[in-house]
């Protein structure tokens, strides 16, 4: 075990008063065979901590602890602790996921330019972090995203057009979190990490062996809520994975404005392990997230995964990054593109042929078309809908205001329907 606190060392099942912990205990004894996780997790404790302690604070790019399985040049490499063995189908699947996610994202950006969306937060450059972690999840796991996890949403089967409603301004969320175990996007930075922790506490109380994953950014790591979620998850040994996409920027602020240590090292102080993974390496992200999820499932508590990646685009379509960062930085990261490196690998290993790429191009076009049409035909909400779902139990005050609003709307002589009288 790599953890220091007694709370974290205690198997979760013994904390559970429900007695349902046996399921967990069984699961722990016989972990899922398919999991391509750690090769030598047991030996890692002391060695890992020592290595991390020695890691230089100021040279994160050359951190020897960065888990990588596929180099930027598309070469498969081994890591002493994390391995992965995927079928050609699975490898092509990851590539397809990343390409389609990028295409969806580009489509949304241009829809914003055309005025169809009010705003868009692009995930460009973060496809590997999101697809790798997203594909590590089981259906019964639960995801708490920020506002940028379009690739994770894709993995969860959330229809991509559903994500666009709130960016178009027709709703404030717009999907049923339970239909894909994918919570609503959260704009208030860091809040969702506590929700994820609480959800995970519930999973543990139920004796289930699902895991929970909370996404957040490098900027979010400064929020009190995030620190509190680390504390709670450690104290309750909650089955949660904290997946931090360190994309180097929080709007205009570089990561150095948020932290003096590499972010993954923060976990140690709370009593659970932190791992830094090459966030542009989909294989490494998949392997490390699987490992972290498996720890959660088997009662070993939280893990912090720091996916070291880069926000290739602007913060959102409202942002102008030329104000605060240099093109050269972006260019350097372009050489580490997550999609290109997998393509190089697929081609050099003859895992994918020209037909595969051609078919995928067609699929991209179809997706783009589908998204454009879906967005353009998205109706504006009925103004009366703002009074809906304010309370689960209803409210006399809301009813009164709704009636007043309806009467007001109807008072316009030229208004056959509500909302057209202006």
């Amino acid at each position, binding site marked *: 075990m790599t953890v220091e606190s007694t709370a974290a060392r205690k198997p979760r099942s013994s904390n559970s008063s429900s007695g349902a912990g046996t399921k967990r205990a069984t699961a722990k004894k016989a972990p899922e065979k398919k999991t391509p996780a750690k090769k030598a997790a047991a030996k890692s404790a002391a060695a890992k901590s020592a290595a991390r302690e020695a890691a230089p604070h100021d040279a994160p790019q050359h951190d020897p602890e960065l888990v990588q399985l596929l180099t930027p040049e598309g070469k498969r490499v081994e890591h002493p602790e994390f391995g992965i063995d995927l079928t050609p189908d699975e490898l092509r699947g990851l590539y397809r996921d990343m390409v389609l996610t990028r295409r969806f994202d580009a489509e949304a950006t241009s829809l914003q330019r055309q005025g169809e969306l009010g705003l868009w937060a692009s995930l460009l450059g973060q496809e590997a972090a999101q697809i790798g972690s997203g594909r590590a999840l089981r259906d019964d796991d639960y995801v708490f995203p920020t506002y940028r996890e379009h690739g994770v949403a894709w993995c969860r089967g959330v229809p991509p057009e559903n994500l666009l409603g709130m960016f178009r301004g027709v709703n404030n969320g717009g999907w049923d979190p339970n239909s894909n175990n994918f919570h609503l996007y959260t704009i208030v930075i860091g809040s969702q990490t506590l929700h994820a922790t609480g959800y995970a506490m519930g999973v543990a109380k139920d004796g289930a062996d699902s895991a929970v994953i909370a996404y957040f950014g490098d900027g979010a790591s400064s929020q009190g809520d995030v620190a509190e979620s680390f504390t709670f998850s450690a104290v309750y040994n909650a089955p949660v994975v904290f997946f931090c996409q360190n994309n180097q920027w929080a709007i205009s602020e570089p990561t150095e404005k948020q932290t003096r240590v590499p972010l993954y090292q923060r976990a140690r102080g709370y009593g659970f392990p932190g791992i830094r993974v090459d966030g542009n390496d989909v294989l490494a992200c998949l392997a490390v997230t699987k490992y972290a999820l498996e720890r959660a499932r088997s009662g070993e508590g939280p893990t912090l995964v720091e996916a070291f990646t880069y926000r290739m685009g602007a913060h959102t379509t409202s942002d102008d990054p030329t104000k605060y960062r240099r093109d050269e930085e972006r260019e350097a990261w372009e050489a580490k593109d997550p999609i290109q490196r997998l393509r190089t690998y697929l081609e050099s290993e003859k895992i994918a042929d020209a037909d595969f790429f051609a078919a995928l191009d067609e699929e991209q076009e179809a997706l783009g078309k589908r998204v454009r049409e879906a967005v353009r035909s998205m109706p504006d909400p009925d*103004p009366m809908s703002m009074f809906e779902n304010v309370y689960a139990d209803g409210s006399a005050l809301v009813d009164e205001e709704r009636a007043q609003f309806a009467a007001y709307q109807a008072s316009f002589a030229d208004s056959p329907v509500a909302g057209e009288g202006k």
Partner: protein
Amino acid sequence: MAVQKLPIAKAINESLRKALETDPKVLVMGEDVGKLGGVFRVTDGLQKDFGEDRVIDTPLAESGIVGTAIGLALRGYRPVVEIQFDGFVFPAYDQIVTQLAKMHARALGKVKMPVVIRIPYGGGIGAVEHHSESPEALFAHVAGLKVVSPSSPSDAYWMMQQAIQSDDPVIFFEPKRRYWDKGEVDTDAIPGPLHAARTVREGSDLTLAAYGPMVKVCLEAAAAAQDEGKSLEVIDLRSMSPIDFDAVQASVERTGRLVVVHEAPVFYGSGAEIAARITERCFYHLEAPVLRVGGYHAPYPPARVEEEYLPGLDRVLDAVDRSLAY
């Protein structure tokens, strides 16, 4: 140089610049306020000219921003902090309510809290959720805080000067959808008191009271009403705590009617406080109950229906008609 035509955002920028120039204890801090100059460019160029020690890009943590501002104030500094959007002040709400507001009283007056918290607020910019709210009542409710909101570039400039000079904490609500509205700013003028209301249009039939982004709407409503032969007085309250009740009272004693307009929900809104006080003070002058126009008891709606939620000219005139019908 004394009189310039500036948008509100630039007037605040000039005011901050002036304060940084004249008082070495003034600091500007917040998320993205330095290199970027703020997401609305209100602090544009300040870090370049005053350095990273005085114009500070903070970690992304509002409680941290306000909490450390309190500590800096204890040490003699005058921090002006920015909360990026209205909906993001709440991580700092604890520090503001339990610490900032009460410190002076708890220290028996021995400690002062000259902290300004700038909050771009209000809707009408087509934003996603948490970017369009008007939470001023949540602060005005707390003793020890001053709460103000300018509606013009001149007020933006001068009220910021006065807020920074105040030894009490000031929550400075900036009407973000008016940031680019231009007006004359006389940087040599002698400003009136920070918390005094101002009559921005005289009239005799009814008083409209508003602040921040709604002043413009009320002025437009008054102009439209004039075409129908109704004479509306418009008062820019400028300050939600304290409220210049004397000014409102004097107006209502002449007009006999009052409509209060704000974007914030009417339920427990500042209009409720004004209605209650003015009813107490002017009961025998009132020809109609004080009416309120504002947001509904519902979450701020998605952008594509916000125009229905926000008080506009028609809703103000509707209330005016109802008041005049009594």
